[in-house]
């Protein structure tokens, strides 16, 4: 069986600066892959190249064996690839429920049915379930902008899962989240991984979070893959200790 995501030899240069310099990896069904590396190692640029938000200078991205390089983010999302952002990206003027309906509405029906059909695109129940799952049930009708940072992080994640994606790319999900929330988040992610068989790729700084969540870890440095293996293997790799854990 082919891997869910297969990234081959991605290069990305900004002017003369090579942010990503030939990265290849693949992710299998149901895996949780962590990508770590020091600041500026090209993690986010890599993400953006995979997700069609930047055009890679070179290289290919395959989803279920089908090439999706340079596909527009919205099309990619409708193929079942979803993401969260490093910086908070919820819609502050919409309520929590509206945020989730928004995250699901384009996956149902046609443009016409979205115009003439129901206002909630028939998604209220599903949204409420998702809200409950992420323990935001008491906040369904609150404006997203009024939520605490941690709650917004949960909402952000909930939005990424709303449409039942095959593959989710999480960009620093633990950043700025307090410990209790972090536990919640990790637990939710694991549950979705187990229940829905969704595949994850996680960029993260929080080593504990990565090591306890991921099944496999990829270490990037200076735009290249430095090491790859299970959390235990990576932790033991002297090169990684030198480049990343060392400082």
């Amino acid at each position, binding site marked *: 069986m082919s891997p869910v995501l297969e990234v081959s030899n991605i290069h990305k240069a*900004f002017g003369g*600066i090579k*942010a990503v310099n030939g990265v290849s990896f693949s992710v299998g069904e149901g895996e949780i892959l962590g990508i770590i590396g020091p*600041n*500026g190692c090209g993690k*986010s*640029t890599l993400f*953006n190249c995979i*997700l069609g*938000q*930047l055009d890679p200078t070179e290289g290919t991205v395959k989803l279920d064996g089908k090439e999706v390089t340079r596909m*527009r*983010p*919205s*099309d990619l*999302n*409708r193929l079942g690839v*979803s*993401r969260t*952002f*490093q*910086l908070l*990206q*919820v*819609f*502050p*003027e*919409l*309520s929590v*429920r*509206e945020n989730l*309906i*928004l*995250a699901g*509405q*384009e*996956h149902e029906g046609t*443009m016409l049915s*979205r*115009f*003439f*059909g129901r*206002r*909630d*695109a028939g998604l209220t129940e599903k949204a409420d379930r998702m809200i409950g799952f992420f323990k935001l049930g008491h906040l369904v*009708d*609150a*404006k997203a902008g*009024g939520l605490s940072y941690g709650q917004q992080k949960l909402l952000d994640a909930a*939005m990424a899962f*709303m*449409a039942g994606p095959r593959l989710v790319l999480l*960009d620093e999900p633990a950043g700025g989240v307090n410990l209790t929330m972090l536990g919640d988040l990790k637990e939710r992610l694991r549950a979705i991984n187990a229940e829905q068989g969704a595949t994850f790729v996680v960029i993260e700084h929080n080593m504990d979070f990565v090591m306890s969540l991921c099944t496999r870890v990829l270490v990037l440095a200076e735009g290249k893959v430095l090491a790859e293996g299970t959390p235990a293997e990576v932790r033991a790799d002297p090169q990684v200790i030198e480049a990343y854990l060392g400082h």
Partner: protein
Amino acid sequence: MTAPATEGSLPQQRGRLSRVPSFAAFADGTLVTLMLGAVILWFAPAGMGRYGTYVLSLWLVMSIAVMGLNLTLGYAGLKSLAQAAFMGLGAYATALLTTKVGPNWYASFAISGLLTFAVGLVLGFPALRVKAHYLAFVTLAFSTLVWLILRNEQWLTGGVFGLSNIPRPSLFGLKLDGALAFHRFVVIVTLILAIALWWMIRSPWGRAFTALRENPIRAASLGIDTRMYTLLAFAIGSAYAGFAGALYAPLVEFIDPSPFSLSQSFFLLLMVVAGGAGYLLGPFIGALLGVVLPEWLRVVGSLYLIIFATIVMLLLIACPQGVSGLLERGWARLTGKDKAGEAKVANTGGRS
């Protein structure tokens, strides 16, 4: 971090000008206001004379064009500098069809809308492919080119001498030639178009418009085809200008290229902002300031233009949400509701 720094910066740039105050919030209040407004306007001309009636009709017709631009600017965050040109296309299409070709006004009205919608798609596609602000450049060029064609192709458009004796439509065999009858017709058409827009804004489309204006990158990552929605917002906004033109021609019974020039497009943009971009009722207020205010200020001669522009400038500095935003603020203060309370109201509305 090098690249991701841009992630957060773009949405902030889009500005708060065109905030939709929880687009569900006033949905039903808006509908009621629209209905009530229509009833009032139906009877309003009593005792106003033909001039007052005419100005009211002109106000409504301009409101339709401003409504369309509000969709483009207020909901989708795009600068179109060709709204008056689109209105011209609609007006000339209707005038030529009804006077020279022969279909009735209703068919001409529909054709005007379809034509401007299609032209909007054709214009918007290459521009939006590049960058949102290129739409401003392309529409600027388009606006002037349309004006040149309207002026130069005298065999078709009457050139600088314009087209006169544009007939007014009839309804179920009822002649609408009188000022009052036609005014009431305009009220009905405006109401229908406003309700259509109201419906769209509260449908999933409206949610998508809000999303792509607030944060297009996040919206795209949630499967929202931002290019399609942006294009649609622009094309539908342009079609509204076409509809407005189709009413303008029989209202004035004469058209020449001057009301469809670039400066008129600028003026329409100012009306959107003055009324409150992103508010469904904003265009009516904006057009009121742009069309009716000059009538009130006739005493000061041409100074009213300065007065209008100054009002817009002050509004932009003090309250970028325009008069609608001011009214909303005033209402909140009057009823003693704070921001949180406002959110609560908003969301009970959202459940219905």
